[in-house]
């Protein structure tokens, strides 16, 4: 009989032990599941909020998304982000989520809670916690702040429906801290990006203003020269002034095109050449009916380092042709062909069907500023080449490398 009792007790003990171990396993399983759930959630938080930060979304939206994920993860009913206001020396909410109409939409917390307050309604509050609870209107909360960054996170979990109520646990605090650090990192990166964008915008505005003022100053110089020329009765003096005015115009037009361009560092050569040629024709009072202009200019972008020398060369070529190639109201035509060969080589072919050059005329031996400066610009500044042909008028074949690769702007 006693054997049967012993056996019964043995089995009873074994059953109790197994039951306890089962319970232990169940608890362990629940804990591991909760851990896995939290890990998944924090991974989601990092991924989603970082993705948002990568896109061009407003910071408000990132804050809201962040709080939403916090609410979902911790099954909480309210969450708020705070920023430390140094002037008031208090924490001011920058974003709240889960607030009903009865809740305040802005919160000031001036009671200086410690960095972490992990508080459930079952715990007897100390004075700081009481003060925090009164401000928030909740007795079940988690407060995490990072004083270095001046940011804080508040999570409240006090649903009216008590069945859904879940007290905060130590793991919630760890997770909240991790989440806040992720958010601070994003916030600082976003702030730096915004500062960069603002600074870039300011510099663009300044550069535009600079181009604009340069152009305007050049126009003022042109006007002064025009006034001075008008005051003179000497035709030679007037001619010299007009030539200089046109050279200044060729340069000022580059600055005008630059501040009108999107890139602020390059202009479209087709538009520039067309406008410059048109103005020069008007400047010498020559109608298109008498001297027709054939422009075959490829549309490509050039930097200021190419555009200004190009404008000065074209100005000399066109001015010389308009002044000398068609005397005595002779009719004719001028052709300008400009194109890019390969990646960097620019070709400029200029021809007219005028009277040609005087016999024995050698461009390099000329003392006139126009021709000398043109050769200096091509051979010296652009390190290019120029050849001249006299046949049914004059033709110049110029080639040089686009200066973009040697641009001063990139140095």
């Amino acid at each position, binding site marked *: 009989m006693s054997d049967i009792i012993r056996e019964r007790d043995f089995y009873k003990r074994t059953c109790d032990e197994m039951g306890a171990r089962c319970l232990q396993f169940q608890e362990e399983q629940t804990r591991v599941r909760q851990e896995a759930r939290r890990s998944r959630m924090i991974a989601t938080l990092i991924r989603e909020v970082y993705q948002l930060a990568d896109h061009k979304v407003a910071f408000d939206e990132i804050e809201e998304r962040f709080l939403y994920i916090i609410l979902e993860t911790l099954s909480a009913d309210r969450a708020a982000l705070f920023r430390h206001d140094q002037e008031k020396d208090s924490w001011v909410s920058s974003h709240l989520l889960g607030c009903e109409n009865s809740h305040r939409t802005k919160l000031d917390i001036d009671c200086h809670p410690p960095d972490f307050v992990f508080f459930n309604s079952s715990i007897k509050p100390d004075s700081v916690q009481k003060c925090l609870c009164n401000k928030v209107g909740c007795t079940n909360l988690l407060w995490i702040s990072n004083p270095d960054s001046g940011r804080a996170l508040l999570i409240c979990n006090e649903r009216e429906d008590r069945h859904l109520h879940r007290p905060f646990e130590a793991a919630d605090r760890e997770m909240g801290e991790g989440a806040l650090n992720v958010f601070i990192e994003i916030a600082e990166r976003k702030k730096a990006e915004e500062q960069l964008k603002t600074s870039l915008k300011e510099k663009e505005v300044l550069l535009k203003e600079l181009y604009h003022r340069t152009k305007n100053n050049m126009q003022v110089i042109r006007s002064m020269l025009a006034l001075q020329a008008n005051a003179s009765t000497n035709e030679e003096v007037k001619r010299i002034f007009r030539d200089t005015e046109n050279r200044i115009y060729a340069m000022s037009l580059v600055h005008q095109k630059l501040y009108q361009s999107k890139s602020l560092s390059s202009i479209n050569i087709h538009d520039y050449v067309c406008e410059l040629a048109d103005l020069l024709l008007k400047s010498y009072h020559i109608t298109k009916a008498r001297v027709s202009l054939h422009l075959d200019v490829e549309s490509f972008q050039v930097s200021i380092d190419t555009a200004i020398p190009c404008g000065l060369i074209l100005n000399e070529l066109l001015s010389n042709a308009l002044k000398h190639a068609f005397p005595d109201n002779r009719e004719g035509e001028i052709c300008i062909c400009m194109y890019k060969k390969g990646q960097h080589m620019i070709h400029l072919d200029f021809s007219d069907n005028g009277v040609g050059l005087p016999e024995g005329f050698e461009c390099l031996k000329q003392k006139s500023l126009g021709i000398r400066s043109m050769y200096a610009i091509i051979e010296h500044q652009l*390190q290019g080449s120029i050849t001249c042909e006299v046949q049914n008028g004059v033709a110049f074949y110029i080639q040089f490398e686009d200066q973009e690769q040697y641009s001063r702007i990139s*140095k």
Partner: protein
Amino acid sequence: MKKNTKCLVVEDEALLALSLEMELKMAGLNVIGIAATGEQALQNLKVKKPDIILMDLRLSGKMNGVEVIRMITRMYHIPVIIITGYPDTKLMDAAKRLDHVRYLLKPVRTETLLKLMAELLNG
């Protein structure tokens, strides 16, 4: 400063180089060459042996003016006047420390330039 002093102009803006050449010639000096790049300047130095170099800091080509000056001061004892539109305090200080290098900011008055050239050449 002797008449016919041999000057080398290193300036990549063609019109500024032409204008400087004209002013130096009018002052009776001998402009032995105009270089637009650092490489051309060094080539000119080797072949034409100038007495003085007038030089911009921003040049086209692969070398900038500072690199060229470093090479000149290392290899030759020729005075250099830096003529530039970009005020750079570090460079100004460095130039002050070098015996044969002086610094002028654009726009430069011809009289100022000639006076400085004379000071450098006459020691």
